[in-house]
């Protein structure tokens, strides 16, 4: 069998024009599919940045909240009620809101402000510079050094700014695992300072973060929170809810799906057409092979091998090209959101298998129909 496949390989790759056209078609299709799905993965990942960075196990929120960026403040009694639920080790409030800062240059910049519980600082980021206790200092803020950091003109510890006519000072520089989606820098401060500095509504608690006694306590906590008229979600559930929102309620998911399907159809058309032409050009030779003594299944193996080889080579090139472009783009634009996941690669692989399958089917049908007698007749 190896010999037959080697013949198939040589027939394919030695026809350089056709092979190149096949590779280009499949590579292009895979590249587009992976780019599309990677961008979407990146968006989904970043949309849950606050959830990932704060890291609380259970989040309490208004049921209408779809993403961590939404903010429907809850009254203070909810915090007390949650703290009294059996199975809650502790519960703390989290402030999350937007603000405008005036930099020393006079420029204004939107920021996201995260207010951590004053007593526990639960959900605090890892500091690169400064001490966490400095957050209790006068006007203290910690800035996150992520892709958006330069928008604050690369502040250092001690850099001052204005926030809603209050003086702010950077006391620490932190890093987080995931940058946000909306391209604005993030400042951490204490919950009370956030309320004090930023204009607030009557209710102020964006989220309540819960540390459950154990995982078996979570269903009961969720039930009790629901009875209060609110929703408790685990970290993963909140990430999934955010993903569902972007997938099904924003149009982003539909657009990405349409583009991915178009990429697939383009790839299928190019490779299917090229492979069909390749088979047609070699049809007489396949007939000659049949006449010489090749069995039908051996010809099927040859075609399957050719289609699979071209598809997998194109798949590898497409993935490589997409990853290279994303890497280069990230080097040039740190806020570039694309992120290639195993799911994206798996999806592209399935699409490529379908392309290979359809191309093979077209070829196999044609080759199995050729009669060696036609070779004699010329």
């Amino acid at each position, binding site marked *: 069998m190896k010999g037959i496949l080697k013949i198939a390989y*040589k027939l394919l790759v030695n026809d350089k024009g056709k092979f190149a056209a096949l590779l280009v078609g499949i590579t292009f299709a895979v590249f587009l599919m992976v780019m599309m799905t990677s961008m979407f993965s990146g968006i989904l990942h970043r949309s849950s940045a606050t959830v990932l960075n704060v890291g609380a196990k259970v989040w309490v929120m208004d049921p209408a909240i779809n993403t961590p960026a939404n903010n429907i403040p809850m009254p203070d009694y909810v915090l007390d009620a949650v703290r009294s639920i059996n199975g809650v080790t502790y519960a703390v409030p989290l402030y999350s809101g937007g603000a405008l800062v005036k930099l020393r240059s006079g420029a204004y910049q939107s920021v996201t402000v995260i207010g951590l519980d004053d007593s526990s600082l639960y959900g605090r980021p890892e500091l690169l510079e400064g001490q966490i206790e400095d957050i209790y200092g006068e006007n203290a803020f910690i800035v996150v050094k992520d892709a958006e950091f330069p928008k604050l003109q690369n502040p250092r510890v001690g850099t001052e700014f204005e926030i809603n006519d209050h003086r702010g000072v950077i006391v620490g520089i932190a890093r987080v695992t995931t940058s946000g989606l909306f391209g604005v820098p993030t400042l951490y401060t204490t919950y009370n300072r956030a309320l004090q500095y930023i204009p607030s509504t009557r209710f102020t608690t964006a989220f309540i973060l819960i540390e459950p006694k154990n995982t078996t306590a979570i269903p009961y906590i969720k039930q009790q929170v629901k009875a209060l008229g609110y929703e408790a979600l685990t970290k993963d559930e909140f990430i999934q809810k955010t993903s569902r929102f972007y997938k099904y309620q924003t149009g982003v998911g539909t657009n990405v799906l349409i583009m991915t399907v178009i990429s697939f159809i383009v790839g299928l058309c190019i490779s299917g057409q090229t492979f069909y032409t390749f088979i047609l050009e070699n049809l007489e030779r396949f007939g000659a092979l049949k*006449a010489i003594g090749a069995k039908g299944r051996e010809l099927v193996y040859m075609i399957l091998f050719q289609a699979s080889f071209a598809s997998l080579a194109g798949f590898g090139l497409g993935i490589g090209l997409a990853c290279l472009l994303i890497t280069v783009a990230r080097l040039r634009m740190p806020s570039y959101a694309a992120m290639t996941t195993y799911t994206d690669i798996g999806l592209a692989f399935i699409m490529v298998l379908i392309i290979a399958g359809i191309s093979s089917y077209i070829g196999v049908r044609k080759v199995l129909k050729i009669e060696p007698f036609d070779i004699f007749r010329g």
Partner: protein
Amino acid sequence: MAELAMQATALVKWFGEGDARTVAVQGVSFDARFGEMLFIEGPSGSGKTTLLSLISGILRPNEGTVMVEGRDIWSMTSDRIADFRLNKVGFVFQDYHLFPRLTTVENVAIPLILKKNDWDKSIDEAMEYLEIVGIKDRALLPPVKLSGGEQQRVAIARAIASHPDILIFDEPTASLDGETGRKILDFVKKNILTDKRCIIVVTHDNRIFEYADRIMTMEDGRVIGFEQGGGREE
């Protein structure tokens, strides 16, 4: 008398049904013997190529038998018939049907590879056949770089590579000038024909009849006569 290589009895083949039915071969019986070159000649449309396909396991007859080694080849399964073609019959097609994307030696090695031989071993053996047909120095060129006569030799080398008992030539001189055609037939007669091999040539080129041991003439799907060829040593 030499042993029978193949015996065809009462072969009938038609195409189409009803009013559209065309009978291509009508009750043809003949045999071919080891050590002989049997020419089948006749005008276009006389059924030569169809007959060739019937006796070589390519086209199933509607009636009749083709006995090889005491067995009707058309009683076998399709896989066994494919094996029969691979092991017992060598084909030299009119248009050669060489693979332009493979080298000359790889083209010759195809039957050996189909026999599940190792690639390198097949290539080595194919080189020996190229040496027999005198174009070993062209082994690594693609067939399109060879002349018509050289391509014919490649096709012959490919046909004999599987050690067939029956070698079938379809219009071997159709694409060659007269002198090259005669050279090829002369070469085949002297080097390829053996006591353990039978060569059947379909042609309507009477310039090469001198190489035939027997000539079978066909017309309208029937055999209308046999005659001794110029190659028969009395």
